[in-house]
């Protein structure tokens, strides 16, 4: 990877004006797809992603059903207009892999034994991509699952950390992902303190690795607060609702 220009200035300000441990602006709106059982729209920096959940519902074809629990089906898809150069609408190998890791990141939080022989379908549509779309997608999908009333052990919150100009920063954006040194997306169950998605590309030594992991989790916890308040707002009208 070539570092063509400095991505962090001497004051520690990043290319998009953030400091190293600052998230992009995150906004989550719950219940945006009328027909879905649960849904959420997330705006994570310039990412604009809709997650919709259908289910638990009958499985078709029936032979895919599991007798002791629900199957989870997950599709992560990018709209052709979501990227700088048009993306072919056919699912790419990247999307196939991301669909799989997102399903595996959300499944540990779902109490699937409660819905034997059923299916829970999770659709994640990236309308506008800006780096970190898998993390934003997981975050939105977890909120959509809660909105659908699926029994869950915990929320799943996701955030990436990485190395930019030899500094560990959280929530890598598109430019930093392409030009920076490393990118580590993490999904985390904040109350159970378990990691459910973990990927990395880019070089990190032992200290950087530990720091990066800790920072990513710190980012996940910040994301969790936003998920929590978005659900509060939908169901209690204001953030303080449940505390009172």
């Amino acid at each position, binding site marked *: 990877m070539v570092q063509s220009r400095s991505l962090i200035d001497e004051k520690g300000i990043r290319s998009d004006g953030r400091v190293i441990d600052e998230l992009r602006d995150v906004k989550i709106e719950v219940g945006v797809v009328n027909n879905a059982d649960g849904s959420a729209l997330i705006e994570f920096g310039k990412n604009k992603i809709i997650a919709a959940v259908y289910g638990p519902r009958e499985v078709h074809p029936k032979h*895919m059903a*599991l007798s002791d629990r629900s*199957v*989870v*089906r*997950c*599709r992560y898809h990018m709209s052709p207009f979501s990227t700088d*150069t048009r993306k072919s609408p056919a699912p790419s*190998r*990247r999307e*196939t*892999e991301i*669909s*799989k*890791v*997102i*399903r*595996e990141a959300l*499944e*540990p939080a779902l109490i*699937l034994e409660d819905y034997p022989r059923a299916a829970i*379908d999770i659709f994640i549509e990236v309308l506008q991509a800006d780096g970190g779309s898998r993390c934003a997608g997981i975050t939105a999908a977890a909120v959509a699952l809660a909105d659908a009333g699926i029994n869950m052990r915990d929320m799943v919150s996701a955030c990436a950390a990485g190395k930019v100009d030899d500094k560990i920063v959280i929530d890598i954006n598109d430019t930093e992902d*392409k030009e920076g040194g490393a990118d*580590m997306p993490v999904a985390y*169950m904040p109350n*159970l*303190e*378990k*990691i*459910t*998605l*973990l*990927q*990395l*590309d*880019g*070089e*990190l*030594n*032992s200290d950087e*690795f*530990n720091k990066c*992991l*800790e920072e990513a*989790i710190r980012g996940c916890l910040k994301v969790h607060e936003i998920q929590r308040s978005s659900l509060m707002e939908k169901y209690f009208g204001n953030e303080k609702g449940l505390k009172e």
Partner: protein
Amino acid sequence: MSISKKSPIIVENLRKKQMRESISAGKRLDDRGLDETRPIEIEVNVIKKASGSAWVKLGKTEVVAGVKVETGEPFEGLENSGALIITAEVLPIASPHIEPGPPDEETIELARVVDRGVRESEMLDLSKLVLVPGKIVYTIFVDCSIINVDGNLFDATSYAVVAALSSCKLPVFEIKDDQVVDTGKTQEPPITTTPVSVTTVKIGEYLLLDPNIEEEACMDARLTITTNSKGSIVAMQKGLKGYFTVDEVKGIAGKARTKGEDIRAKLQELIKIGK
């Protein structure tokens, strides 16, 4: 769409119980310790039609990798580097559970994770594989055929790619009158490091290195970590619907580094003998 499904390999409950008891006493059903990897055998240059090749055995898992070199346009955004393309196919001969057809999500993940480890380690200095900057570059294909499945395809395939690339001889192309000409000469590949992939799986609360197929049928989660010759971590992939705690991840990363060092020495030795 990605769908949760059951493993096609069925392990009886009694056998699972036996496995759990054995693991809790620190010994696996195939007599290995929890941190013990299976023996690695490597034969290089087995395919004479390829620029480089390797037949790797990791226990009973067998993978053949072949390197083919062409010229082509560079990837978008990477105008001044050669193109590296790594693919993997689990052949129908490899197990009774594989059927011919387009690759399923597991196979796509396998190829992408192996590719990520080799690419992110910058094993090949791709900037040295450019003929006309921005226009014509070397395109290096490393295609892997899995011919017998007995668990841990990630590591076995990664070792096959590393062995095939380390032992290959690239053709020398030249530009004459705006045409690409194969000079018939060969050159050493621009190798900078030896990436080593180490896969750890979690069964219950126990962590095991290099799972065999029976252990894979019982695992809750998997973590593949690739390190380079400096011992830095360059790529990582968690799989399956289990989870890891932060301490587990740090422990696995440490082990991937120390174990990776042993395996790197072993790989380098085997490749050197074969050359």
